[in-house]
Structure formats: structure tokens, C-alpha cells
């Protein structure tokens, strides 16, 4: 019988997602989960709060330390802000620590100066691209309702000129599921991407009126992921990594997936807003009941060891009863907490998709193993 995971493992090194400019952004992507919030006000994290955070975080943890810089559009904080980050990190680096800075950007503001900075300080850069121009410009718009695709491509070109190969995040909406082949082909054959991940748009409470009817359903996602798997197989490039496929594959062979929504380690992350508010993730920013604390008035240690975070970690690990009999329990961990129906203790909305895709890819893997065995025999 499948055992329910009921106790939270050690939380390990906590990974911060830092919203340096609140929701402020130079684009107006229709599906953005900040779309219904005020994206016009430039509210950059104060130097005082930034320093407090960096100092306390680096005091608390050792080993590999991640800093994930997010927004809004984080580049709107300005280059001096990021130079200050690097200065603080250098100043407070202790023996046994290694730092990795990661930034998720829309890439429209990247110029030579930014690219040189990222290269010099080994920043990993993630860029949001939804597919080819038609797919991307469907929802990733600027203030004037114009598409942002050409600006993003220019940004990627600048990054590549400086030897930076960005990772790509594709956001999936209902409309774009119809363009699965065009977008896969664009990423692999035109943009020449070797690694990308897919986020799906789902607006549970229909808060975003501009996106009614665009939430991804189980049917949409199942079909999309199976198509991606088929195309990934046909492409047959050993270096081509689609995050979702990698996550499913890891689970099938009994390994931990890399993503928090598969591996049950969601509670390792925390989101720090520009004003000091700490939540489990930026997907939970609107949920006051999940507020871990406020760095402007508390220490980071107090917040991360506080009852709200410990309760969240426990809730994340307590699986839905339906998971007990599921063969994919340890590969899925009931998905993303933000997409559990009825709250953290609810069932993952995309449970059916997960089961179906795990089964589909498992069949492909078994077919591959059969062929491998057959190949061995013919060579004997």
C-alpha cells in the first residue's frame, strides 16, 4: 500500500524569490497574475531592506545559495540596484558559500550594459517567450497594446552576443494550445532553444476579466503535453530539455523531479516582496492567511522559523486522501499548492493530466527499453 507522506523533511536551504519592484512592469501581459494589480507604480525595494535581507539570508544559510530576482519586471529596478546586490553579496560571503543569481525578465530592456553585467557576475537569465510571434504577441503586449515579440528577440540576441544562453519560460493559455506544433518548432528550429519550461495559465476565480475562457483545462494540458512529448521524441535531440518532460521522466524512473510542483519541496521557497512581506510563493501573494511575516519589522530567521511557515510546510506535505492509492504519489506530490482546489489541503486541479501524462510517457519509455533490448540482440 502506498504510504502517505505526513512529516515534513528538513526545509534545507530556503530559496528566495525576490520581487524587487513589486508589480511594476513595462509590459501588460493579459494573463499576468499581477494584471489585476497596480503595475504602474514604481516601487523599488529600499536599500535598507535589501541590505537587511542579504545580510540575514547569508548569515542563516551555507552551501549553495540561490537568489531569484523577480518582479514585475526586475530590470526596472535599474542596474545600480543590481550592482548593489552583487556588492552586498561579495561583502558578506562566507567560507563554504557559493552564490547563484537568477533573474527572470521579459528581456525587452536588455542592452549591452545589462548583458555585460549578467555575464560578469554569472547571472542565470530566464526569459519569458510564449512561442512564435503570433503566439507570443497574442497576450504579451506593451502599454499601447502592441506586441512585444520583436523587442524580446532583440534582447535575446544581445544576451547571446555576450555569451549568455537564456532559459525560456513559455506560458500556456487556452488559445495557444492550438498552436502547439508551431511553437515547438519555433523554439527548437528557429530560436534554437535547448531548454525551456511551460507554465500554464489558470485563473481560478476569474479575477482577470481580460482572460475569461483562457484558463487551461485538464483536457487542454493533457493534449498539449502529449503533443510536446511526441515532438520531443521526433526531434530526438539528447540535449533538448523540456522541463515538464524532464519532471515526468524523473518521476517515472523513481527519481526526484527538479520542480517544486512535482517534488513536494515547495516549502523550500519563499517570496519576498519589495515592502518586506514574505509569502510562500508569489502565486500566493493575495492570500493574507499565508503571510509568513514582514522583514521590515522581523528578522528573517524569525519569519522562516515562524509558525506560519512551519504550518505551510506541514500542509504541503500532507497529501490529499486520493493520493494514497495513486501510483504516482511520490512523483507528483499533489502538484502546485496554488492550483489545489479549495486551498492548500485540496486536490491538485491537474491531477488527471498528471496521471495521463505519466502513463503516456511511461509507455514511451517501455517501448524505448524494448527497442534497446531488441537492438542488443541483433548485435549479438
Amino acid at each position, binding site marked *: 500500500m502506498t504510504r502517505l507522506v505526513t512529516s515534513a523533511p528538513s526545509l534545507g536551504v530556503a530559496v528566495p524569490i525576490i520581487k524587487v519592484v513589486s508589480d511594476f512592469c513595462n509590459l501588460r501581459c493579459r494573463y499576468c497574475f499581477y494584471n489585476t494589480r497596480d503595475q504602474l507604480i514604481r516601487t523599488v525595494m529600499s536599500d535598507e531592506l535589501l541590505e537587511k535581507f542579504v545580510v540575514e539570508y547569508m548569515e542563516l544559510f551555507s552551501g549553495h545559495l540561490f537568489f531569484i530576482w523577480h518582479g514585475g519586471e526586475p530590470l526596472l529596478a535599474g542596474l545600480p540596484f543590481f550592482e548593489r546586490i552583487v556588492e552586498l553579496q561579495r561583502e558578506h560571503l562566507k567560507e563554504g558559500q557559493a552564490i547563484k543569481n537568477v533573474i527572470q525578465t521579459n528581456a525587452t530592456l536588455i542592452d549591452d550594459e545589462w548583458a555585460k553585467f549578467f555575464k560578469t557576475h554569472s547571472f542565470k537569465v530566464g526569459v519569458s517567450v510564449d512561442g512564435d510571434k503570433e503566439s507570443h504577441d497574442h497576450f504579451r503586449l506593451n502599454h499601447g497594446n502592441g506586441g512585444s515579440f520583436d523587442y524580446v528577440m532583440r534582447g535575446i540576441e544581445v544576451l547571446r552576443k555576450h555569451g549568455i544562453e537564456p*532559459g525560456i519560460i513559455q506560458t500556456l493559455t487556452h488559445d495557444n494550445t492550438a498552436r502547439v506544433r508551431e511553437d515547438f518548432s519555433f523554439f527548437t528550429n528557429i530560436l534554437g532553444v535547448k531548454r525551456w519550461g511551460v507554465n500554464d495559465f489558470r485563473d481560478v476565480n476569474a479575477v482577470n476579466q481580460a482572460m475569461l475562457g483562457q484558463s487551461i483545462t485538464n483536457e487542454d494540458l493533457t493534449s498539449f503535453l502529449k503533443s510536446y512529448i511526441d515532438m520531443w521524441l521526433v526531434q530526438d535531440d539528447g540535449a533538448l530539455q523540456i522541463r515538464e518532460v524532464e519532471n515526468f521522466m524523473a518521476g517515472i524512473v523513481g527519481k526526484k523531479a527538479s520542480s517544486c510542483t512535482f517534488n513536494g519541496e515547495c516549502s523550500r521557497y519563499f517570496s519576498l516582496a519589495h515592502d518586506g512581506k514574505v509569502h510562500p510563493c508569489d502565486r500566493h501573494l493575495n492570500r493574507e492567511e499565508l503571510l509568513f511575516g514582514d522583514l521590515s519589522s522581523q528578522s528573517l530567521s524569525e519569519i522562516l522559523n515562524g509558525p506560519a511557515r512551519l504550518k505551510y510546510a506541514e500542509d504541503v506535505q500532507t497529501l490529499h486522501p486520493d493520493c494514497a492509492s495513486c501510483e504516482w504519489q511520490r512523483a507528483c506530490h499533489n502538484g502546485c499548492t496554488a492550483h489545489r482546489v479549495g486551498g492548500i489541503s485540496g486536490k491538485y486541479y491537474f491531477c488527471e493530466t498528471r496521471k495521463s501524462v505519466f502513463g503516456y510517457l511511461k509507455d514511451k519509455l517501455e517501448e524505448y527499453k524494448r527497442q534497446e533490448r531488441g537492438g542488443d540482440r541483433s548485435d549479438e
Partner: protein
Amino acid sequence: MNDSVRNAGKEVVAEKTVRDTYHPVGSRAIAGALARTKYSPSNHSDELQSIRCPAAWQQWGDWDNGHADS
């Protein structure tokens, strides 16, 4: 060397070439994905993923930022 011997040799070379380059569709993709899982701890382990593992850290650090859904 007469023609039949020469041609026979070519046939053998051609057959060998075909056999050496034969891969079922998807085999490279799957082999690559399987190879990348070797750095990950077991699903049944309480060991945490990624950050303790330099290979995984390098591999995913740029975009696996906690926003995966699918």
C-alpha cells in the same frame, strides 16, 4: 581484386554503416533525459533536490524558479 569481391566489400560497408547509425525514433531524446536523472536523489529519499547537487544546480538554475505547473 575482381569486381564481385570489390562490390561485396562495399555491401558489407554499407550494411555496417546502416547498423551503426540506427536509432529508434526518440531514443536519443530519452537516453538524454534518463542520463540527466542520474544526479537526482530517489523519490523515496528525504534528501532534498537540486541545491545540494551541483549538476542539477547548473542544469536548472536559470529558469526552474518554482513556477512549474504542468
